[in-house]
């Protein structure tokens, strides 16, 4: 009987090096971008959606819970920041942190939703987010939240610093996903996604693990909401509690490929460019393309862009270089539907 040979640590470090380069690369690229192009609101939107797409990646890509109500955390983050500024007079960075904290508090309250499965969870999370929105926007609470009249954060206005914080958060969100790709914890989450019963019988603490993933995803959305609030300065409840926030984040993540490190970034950037070209002037055509993409992806390419590389690797006789690319991308096998035919070939 062969012995168990390897210690884990060298392998882990190696993986970090292989998968971790985007943690540095993309923030740097985004900082460069700001000097090339100065409609900061557009760039910040991209930054925000990259963070949100990675958040969706964590809870959906790794754990299998589809958070239609993800915008609830984004809105909670924006309002957390606004309340902190208006009542505690904190500075921008603390306001962003406050946004993250409020989102996490909301996520803790909503942990019982994780007991629901499939469609129930998706729709219940949406209902929860809408409920939060209606509380924040309610005219009866206007004395606290300013209700539907919106909030104003001019006091802390500092777009350059806000953008920098956003860019750092992109790095952090990528780092979290890289961690999930290489760590035992990430493996546990993927096991839950595959089959929660088997996972628990293999020793995975299912309620704890999925709750942690949920809180991580919520924290990222809350921080992103805080940065958005900071740079936007004036916003209404419906600006931040918009189902479009969830839609964009989910589609960006799906398009690139959930469960991978680069998928949501690639998907987010590519679709954001598309949005810039046609989305602002004629959003209905953009929505049509979005809807079409969702249908196409779920039916024919459930692994997203990232799985194209994987399929390519399987089709073409393997050479070392190609393998290296796909591993460097941090891509794992495509999800069930589309990849099946490719899988049946013997390896």
């Amino acid at each position, binding site marked *: 009987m062969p012995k168990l040979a390897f210690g884990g640590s060298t392998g882990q470090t190696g993986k970090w090096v292989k998968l971790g380069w985007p943690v540095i690369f993309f923030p740097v690229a985004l900082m460069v971008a700001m000097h090339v192009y100065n409609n900061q609101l557009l760039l910040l939107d991209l930054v925000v959606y990259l963070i949100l797409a990675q958040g969706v990646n964590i809870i959906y890509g790794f754990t*299998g819970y*589809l958070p*239609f109500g993800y915008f609830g955390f984004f809105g909670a983050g924006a309002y957390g920041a606004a309340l902190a500024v208006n009542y505690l007079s904190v500075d921008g960075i603390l306001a962003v942190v406050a946004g993250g904290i409020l989102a996490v508090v909301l996520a803790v309250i909503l942990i*019982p*939703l*994780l*007991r*629901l*499965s*499939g*469609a*129930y969870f*998706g*729709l*219940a999370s*949406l*209902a*929860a987010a*809408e*409920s939060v929105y*209606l*509380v924040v926007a*309610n*005219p*009866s609470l206007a004395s606290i939240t300013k209700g539907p009249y919106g909030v104003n954060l001019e006091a802390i206005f500092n777009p350059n610093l806000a953008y920098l914080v956003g860019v750092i958060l992109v790095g952090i969100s990528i780092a979290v996903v890289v961690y999930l790709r290489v760590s035992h914890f990430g493996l546990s989450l993927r096991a839950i996604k*595959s089959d*929660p*019963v088997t996972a*628990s019988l293999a020793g995975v603490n*299912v*309620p704890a693990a999925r709750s942690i993933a949920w809180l991580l995803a919520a924290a990222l959305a809350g921080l992103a909401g805080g940065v958005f609030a900071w740079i936007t300065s004036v916003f209404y409840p419906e600006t931040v509690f918009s*189902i479009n926030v969830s*839609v964009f984040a*989910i589609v960006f993540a*799906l398009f690139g490929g959930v469960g991978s490190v680069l998928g949501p970034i690639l998907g987010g950037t590519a679709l954001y460019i598309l949005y810039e070209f046609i989305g602002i002037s004629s959003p*209905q*055509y953009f*929505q*049509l393309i*979005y*809807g*079409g*993409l*969702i*249908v196409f*992806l*779920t*039916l*024919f390419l*459930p692994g997203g862009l990232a799985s194209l590389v994987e399929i390519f690797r399987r089709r073409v006789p393997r050479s070392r270089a190609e393998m290296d690319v796909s591993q460097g991308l941090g891509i794992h096998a495509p*999800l*069930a*539907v589309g990849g*099946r035919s490719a899988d049946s070939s013997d390896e």
Partner: protein
Amino acid sequence: MIYAIISGLLFGLFFAFVGAGLNLLFGVLKLVNLAHGDLVVVGGYLAYEVSVKLGINPMLAVPLGVIPAFVLGVGLYYGTVPRLSRAEDTETTSLVLFFGVSMIIEALATILFGNNLVSLSPLTFGPAVQLFGQSLPSYWLVAGGITIPALVIFYLYLYRSQFGTATRAVMVNSDEAATSGINVRRISAIAFGVGTVFAVASGPLALFMLGGISPGTGIDLTLTAFTVIVIGSLGNPVGTVIGGLLYGLVLSFVQTYLSSWAAAVPYVLMLAVLLIKPSGILGKRVRNA
């Protein structure tokens, strides 16, 4: 008070009508058609066009819409479900998929009709009617006159027709139904068609009951319909009526006595039911681990 009760019952029946097709699909195919509300909106636009362009009664859109809606539903089924059922987590994947369908319909509606609110005069069916000592909008009577027969037809389809018996067999256990010689695919496709017909048929009423429709109305309607069927228990079409009535009454009373919170009613009810009694009226396992 009496007004609130009448209003609640009528809106309840209307939402039961909207939810009936959604629940049928969930029962048969175990998937949530997130585009359901958008199909209702399509029906609404059909009625609007019929009324404005042809100058005829908008409710004639109901019979006009039946065949195209059925064809659309069957087409949607064959275009998506067979491939979808190969996915690992069919339920969640279907949610994403039909969300995409929903966006396509919404975008097409915006392109065709713009994203303005369209409405028809509430006096289309004549002036207000005096009933039970209350002055009620005439379209409420039309709503009752269409909803009640529609729900009866729905019941007859399920419980008094051959298709219905087979459909219920598939709901209980599609594998066993298949082994006893039922063509599950065909039954499912027909159920999809029927569900779509009911969605589209409820659209003309939505035009009046909601005070107008826009392409964005769809997703709200889907959520409300989902709330109604969750209350009545998913996959149990008869429970939908009970769920609808309960929902309508709660909504009506909140509107009357706590109006600023009325919009939150569907969401809070849905959460309460899912977390406290997730099975609705009939017991069914919806929880993980």
